[in-house]
């Protein structure tokens, strides 16, 4: 396998309050040009407090400042704290320079408390990275399924959503968002089952597929390997690794 370069990783999390040296070694080793990071807290909690998500975002802000050429930030909140969450999203975009909102498992994404956040992000040319899984043994209480993502996406057709992990159980995830043209999927996570990338490209079109790793919880290698393993035309690989997300970042993806 040859070395491709120019990869933008759309799904990275801090470990503790930053990214360890080993992470940057891996970035160089795999030819990753930029990473899009969020922090789920110095200690990950499913339902973080206001102080915890504020601290997490301050850590991301510091990293953006230190590594502005390589780091793009997401602001992360718990939507259950409606007022504080909206204030933090505004701060994330306006003060910290974040480009997207990350939502995890504090509440299902169709919860009405998520709506003001979606509306503000949309008005401010941002996009939303949504964790999503449909687990064989059951989801967490606040964990959105791909069907939840589809419901939200249909409610907000002018918002760009990225459904993480191809929805976890990718065969169901891809089908759930097939008719939501404002939803991209990211390919990140520990699932490396063959066929997922080809199926996503077939049903969604290559333009709706972006590469992610879920580092520091996962390595870049297996995740980049999924894209190589799909044996797509080079032009499609470039779109998945970089060009599609560049369009999202530039606010051109839906236009």
């Amino acid at each position, binding site marked *: *396998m040859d070395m491709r370069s120019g990869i933008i990783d759309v799904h990275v999390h801090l470990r503790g309050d930053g990214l*360890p040296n*080993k*992470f940057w*070694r*891996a970035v160089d*080793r*795999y030819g990753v040009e930029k990473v899009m990071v969020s922090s789920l807290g110095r200690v990950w909690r499913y339902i973080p407090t206001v102080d915890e998500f504020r601290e997490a975002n301050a850590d991301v802000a510091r990293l953006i400042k230190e590594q502005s050429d390589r780091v793009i930030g997401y602001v992360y909140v718990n939507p259950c704290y409606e007022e504080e969450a909206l204030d933090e999203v505004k701060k994330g975009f306006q003060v910290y320079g974040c480009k997207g909102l990350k939502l995890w498992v504090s509440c299902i994404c169709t919860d009405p408390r998520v709506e003001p956040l979606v509306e503000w992000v949309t008005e401010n040319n941002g996009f939303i990275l949504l964790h999503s*899984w449909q*687990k*064989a*043994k059951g989801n967490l209480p606040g964990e959105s399924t791909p069907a939840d993502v589809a419901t939200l996406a249909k409610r907000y057709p002018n918002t760009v959503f990225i459904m993480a992990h191809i929805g*976890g*159980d990718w*065969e169901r995830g891809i089908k759930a968002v097939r008719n939501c043209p404002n939803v991209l999927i990211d390919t990140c996570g*520990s*699932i*490396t*089952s*063959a*066929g997922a990338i*080809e199926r996503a490209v077939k049903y969604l079109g290559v333009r709706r597929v972006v590469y992610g790793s879920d*580092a*520091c*919880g*996962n*390595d*870049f*290698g*297996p*995740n*980049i*390997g*999924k894209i*190589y*393993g*799909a*044996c797509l035309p080079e032009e499609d690989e470039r779109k998945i690794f970089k060009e599609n997300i560049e369009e999202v970042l530039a606010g051109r993806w839906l236009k």
Partner: protein
Amino acid sequence: MSIDALTFIGPWPFRRLKIRSADELVKELDRLGLDKALVSNYQGVFYKDSLIAAEELMEEIHPYRERLIPVPSLNPSIYGWEADLVDIVNMGVPGIRLIPGYHGYTLEDKLLSNFLQLVKENNLFLQVLARIEDERQHHWLTHVGQVSLRSLQDLVYGNKDIPFIISGLRYLEIVTFLRELPEDSQTLADISWIKGQVLPIDELIDMGLGKRLVLGTGQSFHYGDSALLMVERLEDNTQKEDILKNNMERLFPGLF
């Protein structure tokens, strides 16, 4: 020389896989630049009759015996397995795969003691699969048991004269498993499931465990590139060679 310690052929009942035949697997090995592979079939996971599955495996890989090394699976919880094992040994296989999670027994089951004795007498190696598919993705019709780390450790520690390849362990499991392994154990672990960490192989090598690791891709169920890329991008060529072939050749001299 490079060896993939974990490959499969055949149909997976719940999803159409790109690689199903021996011919397709060999083409994929070529694309990945791999020379040889240990292989079994999914029929051996799902058939009640392990012998039929083994016969189908041997027939399918016959034209590629130089590259595909058969390691059929056997279910020792099904009556008559002793005769099946004799027939399978007569096919000229070097080892057997155990897939307890799919075959309805645990590694603590007493039924294994006779089986292990016959494995030793026939100079076979055992490849034990802790998992094939991520538990979160199992099909609603499957009931797959969990293979506990403790039971794997007890199996390996209690049978030092059997060479083992352990497959399907996640990163933290492999750390615990290999760190506690007695030095004289003839055991290797494949890297097909160690994704949950940045640069996980570097970490394992730094812990002094590099001589215990072998490439296993888990194809056709998994993308072969995923595991292989982690090895190919290692900075030290000796470490790379160890995982791609040296560790296997050391444990199984003459097999490759």
